[in-house]
């Protein structure tokens, strides 16, 4: 097993809203290893992005608040760090890229300027010329053609895929231990998606960082991740390595997600099976049912799920395969 660099323990994140308090993340545990990719899968509102922002220390107070748990980066709890200490970690040791490449870069600064900014913050020992050289190198590293010219251009002169490459260049400029990628390919064309995923895989091999890959696309998970955590309504419902999860999913929600991937199976060509979907809607965080949050949509629901036994606990189904379900699939 490679080195453990990040450990999230029993993380709880609340948000105050006009309609009252909601718990967006409720007791999440995660581990990120050097050189490995952890996928977090789930629908919108499942708490995957909030988990990522908590690791970055970017939950905006006073609306949001990390009210419980620990985030241990190389053994140190990030939740205890001062604002200034966290600034030295963000973008330096832990970097993040986002879903919206079109709007995530500052429109009034050049691409080069925006890469240099992160170097100025975290590698101030470099001279101006060295920073500019390094910025061009980063653009070359992420596969941007004629990097010297792109260096001087503004974000609006670049395509979405190119902008996401620039975001990756910014994120990796300080060679972080951990890269958090929050749906980095969702807004891109499919061909560009594949290029970006290839790029991330390649750079991970070269630089050896751990990646937290947030997505709702299981196809992308299969391609990029080593371990997977499936989230639903703020909790992790199933955790396993990627092979186990795809071969032998246990939680009815995971199975539902797998079934909703369109497959191209030649044996079924005659009587094409209709794409299956998960019935119903994600419950609102304001009115979660007692017991399992998934009970109303679950095909395997039994009496225990309705609240008498409380919320199902994430427990070992096998070694390295955890499920939180009273009636997991066999």
């Amino acid at each position: 097993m490679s080195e453990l660099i990040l450990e999230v323990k029993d993380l709880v994140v609340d948000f105050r809203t006009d309609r009252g308090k909601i718990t967006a993340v409720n007791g999440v545990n995660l581990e990120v290893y050097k050189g490995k990719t952890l996928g977090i899968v789930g629908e919108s509102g499942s708490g995957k992005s909030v988990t990522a922002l908590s690791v970055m220390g970017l939950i905006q107070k006073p609306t949001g608040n990390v009210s419980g748990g620990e985030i241990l980066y190389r053994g140190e709890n990030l939740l205890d760090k001062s604002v200034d200490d966290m600034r030295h970690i963000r973008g330096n040791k832990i970097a993040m890229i986002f879903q919206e490449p079109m709007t995530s870069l500052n429109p009034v600064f050049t691409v080069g300027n925006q890469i240099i900014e992160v170097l100025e913050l975290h590698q101030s020992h470099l001279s101006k010329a060295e920073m500019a050289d390094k910025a061009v190198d980063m653009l070359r590293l992420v596969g941007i053609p004629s990097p010297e010219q792109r260096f001087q251009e503004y974000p609006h002169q670049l395509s979405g895929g190119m902008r996401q490459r620039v975001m990756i260049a910014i994120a990796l400029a300080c060679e972080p231990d951990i890269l958090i990628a929050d749906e980095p390919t969702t807004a891109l064309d499919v061909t560009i998606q594949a290029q970006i995923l290839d790029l991330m895989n390649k750079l991970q091999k070269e630089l050896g960082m751990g990646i937290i890959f947030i997505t709702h696309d299981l196809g992308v998970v299969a391609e990029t991740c080593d371990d997977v955590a499936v989230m639903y309504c703020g909790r992790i419902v199933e955790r396993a390595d990627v092979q186990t999860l795809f071969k032998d999913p246990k939680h009815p929600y995971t199975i539902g997600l797998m079934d909703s991937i369109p497959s191209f199976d030649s044996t079924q060509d005659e009587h094409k099976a209709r794409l299956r979907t998960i019935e119903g809607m994600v419950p609102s965080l304001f009115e979660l049912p007692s017991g399992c949050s998934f009970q109303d949509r679950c095909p395997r629901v039994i009496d225990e799920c309705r609240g008498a036994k409380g919320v199902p606990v994430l427990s070992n189904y096998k070694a390295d395969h955890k499920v939180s379900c009273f009636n997991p699939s066999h």
Partner: protein
Amino acid sequence: MNLWAYVLRRLLYVIPVILGVCFIIFILFNVFSPDPALLLLGKHATASQIVELRRELGLDRPWILQYLDIVKSAFTFDFGRSWSTKQEIFYMIKQGAVPSLTISLPSFVIASTVALSISLLVAYFRGKFIDKAGVFLCVALMSISSLAYILFFQWLLAYKWGMFPIAGFESGFPDFIEYIMLPLIIWLILSLGGDVRFYRTVILDEIYQDYVRTARAKGVGERVILFKHVLKNAMIPIITQIVIQIPFLILGALLLEAFFSIPGLGGMTLSAINSSDFPVIKAMTILSAIAYIVFSVITDVLYTVVDPRVRLS
């Protein structure tokens, strides 16, 4: 395309706009207004007197020539003479511009700087007590009539405490300073509420953009985010707001000049309106139109400097 070629082309576009503005002014003054000859001569004028005066004023000539007179004055600034004072209007404007600008320029610069600083401060503490108190104060300031401020401060600061003269004007440094203090304070209070609210909204619009989240993820501090990333993006609406006010500075502050007996352009325009001094009113109308056009060109040019997305085409 380079910047100077762009500026030159924008200035060439100004010419047809000025011709159009002159046409509207011509329609307003020569077609829709009462006959100035009747106004000047009063009720008991004889027909021959009216014909005589109309010829003297050039009102009997073809309309096209009268229109060209206006166009000519727009380009040469030769507006003829005032009917009531018989002075050269251009000279009158030059005379009035000094006190007007002595009041309006420092007031405007100080008010804009203060408003922008306060709005950056409340934006930094958004959602906190300072922000809420600031917004409340802005609304309160805006809700009180400007006359109330003028009278109250004239009474308190000038009459009661004797800090400044109640009214009047003296040109030349440093004599003018004590005369402009009171109008300046009132100008500041009058503009602060609206300006701070506007700038604050513009800045907060930017603070919730995705690029700010990226900057935070890079480890940029909140202060640098506000002053570097947000402020540069907020510059377009801020520049518009500031530059578009400048033409009004040249025209002088009508109300303040009237209440503080300042012999500026605002007062001159008011008395011209009262005495139906058409050439002066016409001159001020042309001048304000030109100022407005010129400063909108300046705004456009500044956009291209601030925002790389604005193309020079």
